[in-house]
């Protein structure tokens, strides 16, 4: 049996061999400094650790281990949830060594966590995040990987750090009110990690500031839809959801369809290309047209056709939609007949009695004209269309025209009656 003393001796000897005494001594200013740090090590309460660390800092401000001391400060502040002091500490690390991985990393992580947004903290956070993003390969080089971390995990950590950098960069852009840049950054983030409720909500806010209500509502609804790990705290989740509803209602003029948007947003980080929500103006216009069709179907039908034909795709609408199908029943006022005696071309105003809009080409001429101002109803098929001046030619038969005046009695027949 090996005696305990022998085992201890072996262990101790190994320790002593591993650590060259001459190198140890240089770091400590004196034994008192070491004693102070040992107290920090033994202390369990982070508040008391902070007291001891401050004592160390006060007594040994220029300690050779001041960067390590700052890391101990960071850990203690983190335990007390004090992001503000953590950021200050990380900033101190960067001031001493601008490429400090710890300083760069924590300034990146914490910039958005600070309650009071100040230009100088934004500047620092931005610089740190960009340095982290640019230095990912170096900071996470295989040679830097701790032995107990698997290669795949190291890669994941690198990727996560890249996302944190993007998060901070987007945050700074947003706080500087560079909304398009922030939108781009957060979009790129979500393309890489679509499951982040936080970034979805941030993108939603940015889009809302840009007055892009529906994309904003989509992102906020998506953020609110997430549950479990990574979800927003419940009280905020509901605030975000309500904001999504309000943005949707403000744009659409009502909440109908909001649930469908939420369902779709929960399933996808971004709206599909064809996704559209009617604006309140469009809805009002549609309702107006529906009301007009109900109140005066012939006028309503004409105004709808007129609007399409007058629009930028008027010719396309004419060829693809209007021409292949019979027109609905329409009403017009005769402006003139051509030829005057037995007309087969009737010019009509439909929106107005004064302006020619439609020319009816009648399959067989009428035996007599109609007076200008006569109101007729007709059904036919569109034949040709000229946008400027507006003229729609419609092929009709006499049977499909209602309201054409009766033929005036001829003098001969009157004579016969007499």
């Amino acid at each position: 049996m090996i005696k305990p003393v022998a085992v201890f001796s072996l262990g101790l000897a190994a320790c002593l061999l591993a650590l060259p005494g001459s190198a140890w001594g240089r770091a400590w200013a004196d034994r008192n400094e070491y004693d102070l740090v040992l107290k920090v090590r033994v202390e369990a309460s982070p508040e008391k650790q902070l007291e001891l660390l401050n004592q160390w800092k006060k007594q040994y401000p220029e300690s050779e281990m001041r960067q390590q001391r700052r890391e101990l400060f960071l850990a203690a502040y983190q335990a007390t949830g004090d992001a503000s002091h953590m950021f200050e500490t990380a900033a101190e690390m960067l001031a001493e060594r601008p490429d400090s991985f710890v300083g760069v990393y924590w300034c990146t992580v914490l910039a958005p966590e600070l309650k009071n947004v100040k230009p100088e903290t934004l500047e620092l956070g931005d610089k740190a995040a960009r340095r982290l993003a640019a230095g990912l390969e170096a900071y996470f080089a295989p040679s830097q990987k701790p032995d107990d971390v698997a290669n795949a995990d190291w890669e994941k950590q690198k990727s996560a750090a890249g996302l944190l950098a993007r998060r901070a960069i987007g945050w700074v852009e947003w706080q500087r009110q560079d909304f398009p840049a922030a939108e781009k950054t957060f979009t790129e983030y979500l393309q890489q990690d679509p499951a982040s409720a936080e970034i979805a909500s941030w993108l939603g806010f940015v889009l809302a500031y840009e007055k892009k209500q529906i994309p904003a509502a989509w992102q906020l609804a998506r953020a609110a839809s997430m549950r479990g790990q990574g979800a927003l705290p419940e009280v905020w989740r509901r605030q975000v959801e309500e904001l999504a509803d309000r943005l949707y209602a403000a744009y659409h003029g009502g909440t109908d369809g909001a649930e469908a948007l939420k369902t779709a947003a929960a399933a996808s980080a971004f709206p599909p290309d064809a996704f559209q929500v009617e604006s309140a103006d469009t809805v009002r216009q549609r309702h107006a047209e529906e009301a007009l069709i109900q109140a005066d179907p012939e006028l309503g039908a004409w105004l709808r056709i007129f609007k399409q034909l007058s629009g930028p795709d008027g010719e396309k609408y004419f060829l693809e939609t209007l021409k292949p199908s019979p027109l609905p029943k329409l009403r017009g006022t005769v402006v003139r007949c051509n030829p005057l005696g037995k007309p087969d071309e009737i010019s009509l105003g439909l929106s107005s009695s004064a302006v020619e809009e439609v020319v009816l080409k009648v399959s067989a001429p009428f035996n007599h004209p109609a007076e200008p101002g006569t109101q007729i109803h007709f059904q036919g098929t569109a034949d040709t269309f000229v946008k400027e001046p507006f003229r729609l030619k419609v092929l009709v038969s006499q049977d499909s025209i209602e309201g054409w005046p009766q033929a005036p009695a001829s003098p001969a027949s009157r004579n016969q009656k007499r």
Partner: protein
Amino acid sequence: MPFAAHRLVFAFAVALATAAGMPQEEGNRYALVVGNNAYVAGPLQNAVNDARLMDKALKEAGFRSTLVENASLVAMQSAVGEFLSRLGPSDTALFFYAGHGVQIENENFLVPVDFEAPASVIAAKFRLFSAAQLFEGLRNRPKRSIVILDACRSNPIARQAALTAGLAQPQNSPNESYVVFSTGPGQTAADNPNGRNSYFTEALAVEIGKPGLTIEEVVNHTRATVSSETSGNQTPWAISSLTSTFFFRPSLNAATENAASLAMKWMTDAKRFEQREEWSEAIDRLNQVIQKKAGGNLQAAAESRLGYLTARRDAQASFEKGDYAAAAAAYVNAVNLDPFAIDAGFEGAFSYLLQDDVDGAVLLLHAIRVRGTGESTAKAMKILAALKDVSAPAAQEVSAEVPAPPPIEEMFPAMRFGAPDLEGSRRLLATTPVDPARFVNEIGTTLAPLQPPASPAPSGADPSPLPSGDQTATLSAAMKEIFHLEIAPTAETRDLVIRRAAAGTLDTNSGSLEIEGADKQIPVVYQGRIQYLPAKLSLQAGKYEVRSVQDGKVVSTQEVNIQAGWPQKVSVKR
């Protein structure tokens, strides 16, 4: 406990958020929330808002909350009496107060709104609500009591009555209680005159809303927020005698709770037990961490610490049995596993000495000289000096120079100096997300509030979804490209109609309007209907405008005065 392990613990302490595997309180949650603004002397701006906010937050956290605003002394006493009478032995009771508070002879009093400064301090006591009285009522009544006092605001009442503003540390807080003050004892807190709520209550309500936070974490986070927002001038303060964990809100999904968060909780427990030298309990917790397969630094820390704790447990057991050889061996093992466990070194040395193994003791004392503090090194030297006459190694050690202390990296092996704590940062972000309230409010102020959905029309009613005025507007919108007429009552008419409607005389006040014109194609829009010229409309008596509209713009108007029984005529042209 080596820092390597407890750094992991405290670095992640903010992430101690889990309900999984933890018993939740089995009783009801009752809250009494009081907010007093309306003081004659020194009215407050936000206390009632604070009470409302807290009432809402607590209700959302499952409390049956009673809100009392601007309470007189009698109202406060009555509300507290009713509150206490509802509490059962398995319940959780929460009392929240926002308003003025004073201390008299180290006793805390809450100030009712009807308080008037009396001639003497003694008399004042009887016009105030005693917090001690509340504590007494809570003693042994519910399972757990939480008392939150946001009552330390700048206080003219105290000055007026020659009392001391701010609250004192409570002397008789109940057992199983958690008492929170919005600021430290004897300090005053800001009412936040530029905001709607006090800094304290605003932050507290947000934290209460976060799932999976223990009450300690809620208060820690609140403290950090308030301290930051007040530039360190206000630091909320708490005193606890809770022995069980309390969550305002359980985790969102306890079943899939992050394994590492649970492991953190067990690591913290293990640390607490280790500090009390309750080795077996500490070992149990570490085994839970290992069995949970938490992964990452936590699991590694638990595995590395387990051997040390086992050695300490074995050493203590052997020592108590008088088996000093086994105790010494176990202490040596402990020191090998944690070379900075100075107390284990001394106890091991004593164990060796108790079995007359001086050389063994000297080796441990040497280890203490390498890693101990100046004080422990001196103590080791004294022992070595006493042994030098009987032990050559001891004599050699005494004459040897004090070894240089080890480098900081050896003291904190889990720190990985120079590399950030990646796991810890993820936990920090998960538990302290950025508060979106500011953006929600900013964006929300530009939007109209959501309207409740319209209730369906009763059967038999006009199915038209729009009132006639809207119909008219709708038609006008649709017809904006074409020339048309609109008939609109003037404001004067509407007023008349309303008054006459109230008098029930509408039917006898109808008149008519005839509109003529050469162009028969001109539409006339009135009350959602279209007519064409010539048009005849039946109208209530009053003034109207006949508006000619072209391209969506009113190009001309004619005013008509409709009188009962008298048809009016207007002529229009394009």
